[in-house]
Structures are given as structure tokens and as C-alpha cells.
């Protein structure tokens, strides 16, 4: 039986509609996935004592065989706030009292970990090497390096893991990634397989014994959150015994999509059951989104917008932050080339025009934002569409009604999640076609 190890926290999604939503998080996300698939499991966890009754009740309802408390968290309520739950950009996690965590380890409970065949660990506020000390080389061990591990040097496992999962949003990735091959090299002696989870761009599985690299797509859909989605992906990929790892990763990608679509657990379970009725070959035939992290540096996006210094730039700044978070390159022509002064002379006008047109020519996508009818933006949309540069109009206020404006762009998006998904989807097609 598999034992899930991790923290149990209280997640509070402040942006959920029509009201904030609170539920148990941490390792519980993975537990929900196994419950949905009717797979037996045990949870070994760290949590504050006041949560014990909630945790016990929750694990019972999720058919957990046993809850083993590995340690008590003191001086911390273990509450995580999310300002933005869909990972449009940086989610703005707020882990309350995070600098004052103290954990009392229960040695007698930790010693029980050696009795499990399979161990899945999501790193947390506890010392990961304390866990490793109680494991042995006969066990199949899987680890997700979440945000609490800042450096690969902090991983001191004495025998190789089966799979090491690392997300592009994790600290270890942000701190140590330079190229795919160099990143893989860091973990060569520590794991048999490395899986890099790249958000809406899919994931990459690297197998050290064969040196093979496999891209697994992400299936885009209308999501309600992204909290714990990566944990669900992990645990599904390791829990489907009888399937090859590649097939399991496709299943995992789909079930992660389902998890992101709802926070209603009974709906999640029903939809997981439905998806598992389909054969994996039909799932693999579906065209998902693949856009590796490194490739995104080739994605040069031109912002067509009245990005002048007298215009509220909140949306433009937000777009830049979100795209930077996902490793895309946004060009803001007015910021890069300068703003035309009032009553500028002909030479200056021509100079800025030439620079902007040259920049547009170097970009492979245009995002237009039109808070008001700005002639420059409208003309840039026209030029981009005529040049067959993929063009997305972001119209959150639903102000576009002119037929040239509504029919020329490749897509009109009215919310941020839709916009980010469309950028991934469009570039994924270009990547698969060898255009980028």
C-alpha cells in the first residue's frame, strides 16, 4: 500500500466565487485523487493539534486506511491564503506565521514509515531528511520538491528515488534551472526518473537509464482553481499499477485537469470515474498543449495598447507579470522604443514608427488591449492580422462591437485565464508545427 507523506494545512481561496472557499490542503489533495480512484492508501502527516478532529473526519470520509501523525506543528495555524487560485501568474500564496514554525517529531510514528512498499512525499515545512532517515532502499519512493526546498543541496537521500517531481513554479526550479540537460544532470544520482511539471505547457519525463525524454501534454479547460493540481498529477501517475509510466502520465494529466475544474469533491470523483472508462489510447490521441519552459523564450509577444504614461497601466503591468511568470517574452513598444512627445516633429514620428514596426516584425504574437478606442492599437491589430501574426484581443469589459474588431483577431478573450490558455494553446500549435 502507498503511504502519502506531507503537511496538512487549511487552504483558503480568497478569490473563489461567489464566496471564499476553505478546505484542507497539503497532502490531502493527493488523498482526494486516490479516493476518487478507489485506491487504498495511508496518510502520514504533520499538522497542528487543533486540526486533529477535522483531519480525522476528513480522512475517514476519503476512505483513508490510516492517518499517522508524524509530528505536531506548533506556533503556527497552518493556514495558506491564495489571492489568485488559477495560476494566471504568481498566485500570491500567503502562509501565515511561516517564520515561526516549530515541529515536534514523533519518532515512534516515523519508524513505521519503513513498513510501506511505496512512499509518496510532498516536501513541506518539516525536515525532509528526517523522513529519509526512516526509509530504506527496498521501498519505492517518490518525491515532489515543493516550495519548501530551496536548493538541490538540501536533498540528502542516500538511495535513488523512483521519480522526482519538480514544478516550474517551485523554488528549486526557479533557483537552479538553466537548461533542461543541465537541470537533469543535477539529479542524476538521486533519482531514476525526473518529471518537470510545466503548468499549462504540459510536463517532461526524463528517464536516466535510457536517456529518453517524453513530453506529456496538458489538457486545457475552463478551470476553477489550480491549488493542489500538481499533487494530483503526481499521485495518479504513480498509483495506476498495470499501466506503463507513459500511459499513467497521460491519465494523470487528464485527472489533474478534472481536479482543476471543480472544488466539489463528489463531482471530481464522478468525473474521474467517467474518464477512467475511456481507453488510454483514445486519451493519448487527443491533442493537448505542449510548450516546454525553454521554448517560451522564443515566444515574443507584442503588446498593442495605449501604454502611454498618462494611461492607467494596471492591466498592461499585470499582463507583463503573468507572462514573465510563465517565461514568455512580452514587448511593450512604448516602453522599449519611447513615447512620442506632444507636437513631435516628422523625423521623430518616423523614427518611433519605424522602431515599432520593426519590433512588430520580430514578434510572433500580438496581444491587443483596448481600454478605449486608441487608433494606434486598432491599426496595429489590422497590420498583425494582415501579416498572419496570431492576434488575440483582450476585451475584459466586452466593449468590442465593430465587426472589423470582432472578426479580424484570431481570438477575443474576456478573462485572464482564458487569455493565458489561448497564448499557451496558440504557441503549442506553433511548437508542434516547428514554427518556433
Amino acid at each position: 500500500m502507498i503511504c502519502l507523506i506531507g503537511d496538512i494545512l487549511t487552504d483558503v481561496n480568497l478569490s473563489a466565487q461567489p464566496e471564499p472557499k476553505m478546505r484542507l490542503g497539503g497532502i490531502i489533495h493527493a488523498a482526494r485523487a486516490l479516493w476518487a480512484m478507489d485506491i487504498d492508501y495511508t496518510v502520514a502527516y504533520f499538522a497542528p493539534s487543533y486540526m486533529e478532529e477535522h483531519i480525522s473526519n476528513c480522512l475517514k470520509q476519503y476512505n483513508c486506511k490510516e492517518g499517522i501523525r508524524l509530528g505536531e506543528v506548533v506556533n503556527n495555524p497552518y493556514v495558506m491564503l491564495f489571492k489568485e487560485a488559477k495560476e494566471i501568474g504568481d498566485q500570491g500564496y500567503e502562509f501565515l506565521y511561516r517564520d515561526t514554525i516549530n515541529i515536534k517529531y514523533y519518532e515512534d510514528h516515523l519508524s513505521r514509515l519503513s513498513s510501506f512498499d511505496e512512499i509518496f512525499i510532498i516536501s513541506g515545512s518539516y525536515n525532509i531528511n528526517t523522513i529519509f532517515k526512516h526509509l530504506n532502499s527496498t521501498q519505492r519512493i517518490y518525491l515532489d520538491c515543493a516550495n519548501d526546498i530551496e536548493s538541490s543541496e538540501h536533498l540528502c537521500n542516500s538511495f535513488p528515488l523512483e521519480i522526482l517531481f519538480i514544478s516550474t513554479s517551485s523554488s528549486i526550479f526557479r533557483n537552479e534551472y538553466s537548461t533542461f540537460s543541465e537541470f537533469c544532470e543535477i539529479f542524476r544520482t538521486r533519482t531514476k526518473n525526473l518529471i518537470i511539471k510545466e503548468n499549462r505547457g504540459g510536463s517532461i519525463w526524463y528517464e536516466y537509464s535510457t536517456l529518453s525524454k517524453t513530453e506529456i501534454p496538458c489538457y486545457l479547460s475552463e478551470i476553477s482553481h489550480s491549488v493542489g493540481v500538481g499533487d494530483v498529477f503526481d499521485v495518479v501517475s504513480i498509483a495506476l499499477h498495470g499501466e506503463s509510466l507513459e500511459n499513467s502520465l497521460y491519465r494523470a494529466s487528464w485527472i489533474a485537469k478534472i481536479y482543476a475544474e471543480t472544488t466539489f469533491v463528489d463531482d471530481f470523483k464522478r468525473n474521474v470515474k467517467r474518464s477512467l472508462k475511456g481507453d488510454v489510447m483514445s486519451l493519448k490521441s487527443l491533442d493537448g498543449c505542449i510548450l516546454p519552459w525553454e521554448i517560451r523564450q522564443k515566444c515574443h509577444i507584442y503588446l498593442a495598447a495605449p501604454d502611454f504614461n498618462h494611461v492607467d497601466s494596471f492591466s498592461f503591468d499585470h499582463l507583463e507579470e503573468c507572462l514573465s511568470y510563465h517565461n514568455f517574452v512580452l514587448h511593450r513598444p512604448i516602453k522599449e522604443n519611447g513615447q512620442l512627445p506632444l507636437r513631435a516633429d516628422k523625423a521623430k514620428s518616423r523614427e518611433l514608427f519605424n522602431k515599432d514596426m520593426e519590433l512588430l516584425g520580430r514578434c510572433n504574437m500580438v496581444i491587443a488591449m483596448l481600454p478605449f478606442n486608441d487608433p494606434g492599437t486598432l491599426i496595429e491589430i489590422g497590420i498583425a492580422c494582415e501579416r498572419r501574426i496570431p492576434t488575440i484581443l483582450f476585451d475584459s469589459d466586452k466593449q468590442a462591437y465593430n465587426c472589423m474588431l470582432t472578426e479580424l483577431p484570431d481570438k477575443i478573450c474576456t478573462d485572464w485565464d482564458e487569455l493565458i490558455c489561448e497564448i499557451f494553446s496558440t504557441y503549442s500549435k506553433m511548437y508542434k508545427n516547428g514554427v518556433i
Partner: protein
Amino acid sequence: MGSSGTGRLTDYSGFFGGQKPSPSKGMQGPSGPIDRCALAFSTELEDVLTSEYYTKLKTIPAKGEHITIAIKYRIVVIANNGLVVGNLPTRYNYLYECINDGFVYQGVVEESEAGILPLVIVAVTPSKS
């Protein structure tokens, strides 16, 4: 104060004796109000210009023509003649689960506009055998 969804945990069957919270609290409880597989919908198709119906026949199906939904390389719309007219937007990817569970989706072409940039909008209704 105290009226938002952070008052207690509600996302599993059996919380507080299994009682569902009041219907006005839209995010609470273990299940949502609807099964999306059972919903009819209307949507514009994607990739009409590059799909096999247009590439083979250089036209699009007429308004009122019968269509069905199928799983191929995407969730696709198929015309009476068996040709793929276009793809459903990815927000309808969940139909993969519904079709695997026995739901069948049929409908009609609701809007059809040929020309430089063809437009096809379909209206789709579910049924279950």
C-alpha cells in the same frame, strides 16, 4: 462578518452529519448543483478553415444540417457526410468523460456563414442511452 465560506470545512460527504449547507452558499458542500454532461450548449467551432469538411469540399454545412460530436484528435463536430467540420473549443474537453460514460451529443448547425473566414455555430443536445 462570518457569512462567507470560511466558517467550516464542507468539501466532503459527512461533514457535520452530512447536511448540505443552504443552497445560497454556492461554493459549499461536496457536490455542485448541476451535472455538466447533461447540459445543452451552443458554440462557435474552431479550425473550420483547416478541417476536412472545408478542405475537401471548399464549403461548410448549411444552417439546419444535422451534426454529431465525436472524440478524435480533439472533441470534433461531424457532419452528415462523416466529415469533420471543426473542433469544439477546449472548454468542452470535459465531453471526453461524458461520452465515455454513455452520453451522446447531437445537434444542428445553428449559424453558417461561408466566405473568406467561414463561421459555423452549432447547437448541441445531450442524451444518454
